[in-house]
């Protein structure tokens, strides 16, 4: 059966027709919450790898990442909930639910991340040496940031209902985007006049190379991901079709590919000199590309229609 033998049906009210129905509940607020969570955690995690000589920069980048997670990410999740004041109940199922695990990691990042930022202030601005306690807190905060960065992707991968998500590449792709966001924002912050000289020319070059590497990795992953979709069940093909040709081609080709990957790869090559303006443009483009891919993953996710299931079709047609 061709995947287009069944229609795409986007309807808020229930339909009695068989079709590819997109999921309609995880929309803007969840997209924003996932975006801020992954980006903030990626920035925070990357800040832990900034060399000791650039401690002021590490402090500022870490603070930025922490603020994005503690503020917008939590806020978007909170206002999305149907019963926001019951949010604490989300901690009940760590044994089976990745959402619960993500909740714990987010709370840990908010708490330990805050302690890390406070304790690191002395190291960055008063020349104090890091204490073992400070380092232990940093490790816990780093692990929490890693889980925050990856858990949305795992929630999606574990969902058996939407073949676009039920793909083990999703957490890897989202992690890679989060790290790319972290590196890009680190480079941008390093260009602020107040932090001039924190990165040497060599370090700047090295971090730019890392960013380029992540761009290339993301390009490859997107190609592989889209290719895997075309080999999967019909609902995955339908999602790929919606993304590439039917409903969201502008978001994909312009937002994800042209702006989010090709432009950020080519801009530094064309402009040559590292400057605040260039890095600002790269950062904005990177954020647009990152948001667009997340938007597509959430919006183009369609459920497998019951009728195209081989077992059901067999039962239906055997009476003919």
């Amino acid at each position, binding site marked *: 059966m061709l995947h287009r033998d069944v229609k795409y049906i986007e309807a808020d009210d229930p339909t009695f027709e068989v079709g590819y129905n997109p*999921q309609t509940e995880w929309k803007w607020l969840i997209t924003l919450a996932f975006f801020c969570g992954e980006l903030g955690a990626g920035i925070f995690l990357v800040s832990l790898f900034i060399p000791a000589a650039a401690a002021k920069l590490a402090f500022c980048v870490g603070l930025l990442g922490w603020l994005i997670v503690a503020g917008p990410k939590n806020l978007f999740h909170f206002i999305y909930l*149907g019963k926001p004041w019951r949010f604490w109940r989300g901690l009940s*199922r760590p044994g*089976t639910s990745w959402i619960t695990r993500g909740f714990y990691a987010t709370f840990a990042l908010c708490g330990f991340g805050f302690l890390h930022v406070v304790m690191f202030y002395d190291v960055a601005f008063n020349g104090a040496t890091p204490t073992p306690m400070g380092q232990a807190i940093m490790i816990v905060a780093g692990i929490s940031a890693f889980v925050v960065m990856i858990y949305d992707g795992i929630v999606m991968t574990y969902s058996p*209902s939407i073949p676009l998500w039920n793909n083990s590449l999703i957490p890897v792709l989202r992690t890679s985007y989060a790290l790319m966001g972290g590196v890009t924002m680190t480079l941008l912050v390093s260009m602020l006049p107040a932090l001039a000289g924190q990165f040497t020319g060599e370090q700047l070059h090295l971090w730019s190379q890392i960013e380029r590497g992540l761009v290339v990795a993301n390009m490859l992953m997107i190609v592989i991901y889209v290719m895997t979709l075309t080999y999967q069940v019909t609902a995955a093909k339908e999602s790929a079709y919606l993304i590439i040709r039917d409903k969201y081609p502008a978001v994909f080709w312009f937002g994800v590919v042209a702006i989010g990957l090709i432009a950020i790869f080519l801009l530094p090559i064309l402009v040559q000199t590292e400057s605040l303006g260039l890095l600002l443009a790269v950062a904005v483009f990177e954020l647009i590309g990152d948001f667009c891919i997340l938007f597509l993953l959430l919006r183009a996710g369609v*459920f497998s229609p*019951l009728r195209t299931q081989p*077992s*059901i079709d067999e039962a239906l047609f055997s009476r003919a």
Partner: protein
Amino acid sequence: MIWGMVIDLKLCIGCQACSLACKTEYGIPRGMYWTKTLIDEVGVFPNVTRVYLPQLCNHCEEAPCEKTCPTGASYTDEATGVVLVDYTKCMGCRACYVACPYQNRHYVKRGALQGYYPGKGLTPFEAQSYPHFTEGTVTKCVGCIERVMGGLDPACVTNCPTYARKFGDLSDPNSEIRQLIRSRNAVQPMAEKGTEPKVYYIS
């Protein structure tokens, strides 16, 4: 007893009596059905046929909706195997909605309990049934658990004019449904997802 249902696709005439029986039994708010019969046309003219596919919560043994629920609001009733939602615990994250491969979960939006005649108050029927729902939470088929515990069949089964839906005890090897599953090579919807549905189809 373990809740189970067998649906005979040969007998279904697509009348939607089940959809309405369920809606009436529970006073389900507008814009949602706990069960419905999907209608599809297949084939190419002149060899076209219409097919009907009744659909409801499968009360899956390995329910992904329950596993992903972070609050424990989604749970399986041990005595019957029916998957239920505790509205007092649900925080409305809708993770269960995206996890259910059968699209059998429904979010009760804020304002969804305004009734069929907005601005004119609730009808007596709505006033009696809507307090059983909670805005901002997720709802689904309850397997007519209170009818079943009282020795009755689910409303969608009782009201099916062609006896296409059969209800019974999956734990009893001699029950009618177990015999049908054996003798008619019953299939489970999307069995490949590993959810182990308790609803079976025969034809």
